[in-house]
């Protein structure tokens, strides 16, 4: 039988190892991708068009498509997400309606992206073809918007809840209407928190692949409008690595992975920076 002190020591060491293993896993994954990819990331890779299905050349049109796609997705999802958050915090008490809304948001958050893809394909690509032109940036963005909605609602709600009640009372006491109070007092105070949520959603949008395989079209060309098919960097990585699969293509996949990881790193750091300023201002 082990003494109590010994098991305490062993447990402590084991838990320290667990903590460090988690960090080590991250370092190994990121380190390996950067190690394989950084060599192939250069100015030409970032600014040239892809050749031979992406196994040669660069990813410029794909970077542009990723930016278009992300902007469009956020433009669709943010108003709905923030609107929902305002309604939940300012207009209702906890009750039947909020329960239904919360159930919807939570259920939506858990659905696998490939199921969103099936839905997007049946609804936006096939049924709404006259509007979306089939596989297109618009179909992809509408699908993507449904996916990030739960995150946006939750983060915006948290941000609006931190605005002190006295701000609202002050505004209402001065004779402002409820809507004026929301627009001129509540939202500006909650803005950094809402922005953090939006930035985090950008990360999700950029990393998404499965749903876009069924809705975005996967074209390598530079899109001219939101009705053109396109592909994002994540999709490009997959298509190049798996469907081309030659060694130069794998190198391009790692280079794309490197660009993705650096982008995500910048996004996370920005979100943390905004959040930190928000917290220090609110307290």
């Amino acid at each position: 039988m082990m003494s109590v002190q010994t098991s305490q020591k062993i447990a402590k060491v084991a838990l320290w190892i667990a903590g460090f293993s988690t960090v080590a896993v991250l370092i190994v994954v990121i380190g390996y991708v950067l190690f394989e990819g950084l060599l192939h990331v250069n100015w030409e890779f970032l600014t040239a068009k892809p050749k031979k299905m992406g196994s040669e050349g660069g990813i410029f049109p794909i970077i542009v498509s990723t930016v278009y796609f992300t902007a469009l997705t956020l433009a669709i999802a943010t108003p709905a997400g923030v609107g929902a958050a305002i309604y939940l915090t300012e207009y209702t008490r906890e009750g039947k309606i909020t329960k239904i809304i919360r159930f919807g948001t939570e259920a939506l958050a858990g659905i696998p992206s490939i199921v969103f893809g099936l839905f997007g394909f049946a609804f936006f690509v096939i049924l709404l073809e006259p509007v979306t032109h089939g596989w297109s940036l618009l179909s992809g963005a509408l699908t993507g918007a449904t996916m990030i909605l739960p995150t946006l609602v939750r983060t915006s709600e948290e941000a609006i809840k931190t605005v002190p009640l006295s701000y609202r009372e002050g505004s209402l006491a001065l004779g402002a209407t409820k809507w004026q109070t929301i627009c001129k007092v509540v939202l500006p105070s909650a803005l950094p928190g809402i922005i953090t949520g939006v930035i985090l959603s950008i990360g999700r949008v950029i990393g998404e692949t499965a749903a876009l395989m069924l809705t975005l079209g996967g074209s390598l060309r530079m899109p001219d409008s939101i009705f053109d098919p396109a592909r994002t960097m994540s999709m490009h990585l997959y298509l190049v690595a798996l469907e081309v699969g030659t060694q130069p293509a794998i190198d391009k996949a790692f280079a794309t992975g490197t660009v993705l990881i650096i982008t995500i790193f910048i996004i996370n750091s920005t979100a943390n920076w905004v959040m930190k300023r928000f917290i220090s201002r609110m307290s």
Partner: protein
Amino acid sequence: MNDKLKEKAYEKILLVSAFVSVIIIILIGGFIFKEGLPLINKVGLFEFLLGKEWHPTDGVFGIFPMIVGTFAVTFGALILGVPLGVATAIFLAEFAPPRVSRIVRPAVELLAGIPSVVYGLFGMVIVNQILMTIERTYLANILRPEYQRGYSILSASIILAIMILPTVINISEDAIRSVPREFKEASLALGATEWQTIYKVLIPAASSGIIAAVVLGMGRALGETMAVIMVAGNTVAIPDSIFAPVRTLTGNIAIEMGYAAGDHVKALFATGIVLFIIIMALNTLATVVAKRGVGRS
């Protein structure tokens, strides 16, 4: 328009946007069932769920191998990922000095942010390579040649285990932190060591939250698509070894949707129905478990 009317209009607009999620979830369910259900009726529910053969071009639709494959990689991921995740959560909640958690926490965040295709690429190129070397060097006599390519349940489980770590860590840590301080103080005051306090007081008190973390991690693993396609090999066969290549339900949809037509498309939507129901059941379970925990403490 006068101000009162305007106020009312704004409220209505906000109400509608609040219901967007609910509308979408109904639409998703509606469309998937509408497209997939006719095929399940045509083939027969039991034939579809328990059929061992999948030859979509000949009209034979049995997804049993994919169901087995999905649960195999999911349980593999839980076996590898949950102990590490929960241990890291305990470490962060109880042992980590602030300076260390300032490193671990952003690391977990970044781990959650990395796109799944990057994990897939890593798994495909490095994990599968290592597994293949092991299979060919040490297990060459035991394993069938098609089990010596690295693409396997094991490699998919390893990659998924990494991918569910953030979910398991974050939710478990919250659960452990939400245990009232008095519980811990009372235990320590009675002379228990930190470790005794952790596994006799904190973990039991946080158990419902930790279970919810595991269930949500399970949902994440079940729903993952791209990374699994890249490492699992995607053979439609009931696996008999952790070195066997498998196809998952999600992988089945993503791989075949590109060229499917007619009943084949419907069969992929029907696969989506199965996935949808499994995930909804799991999420409901997680909510129920988490609520029970809140009610008790």
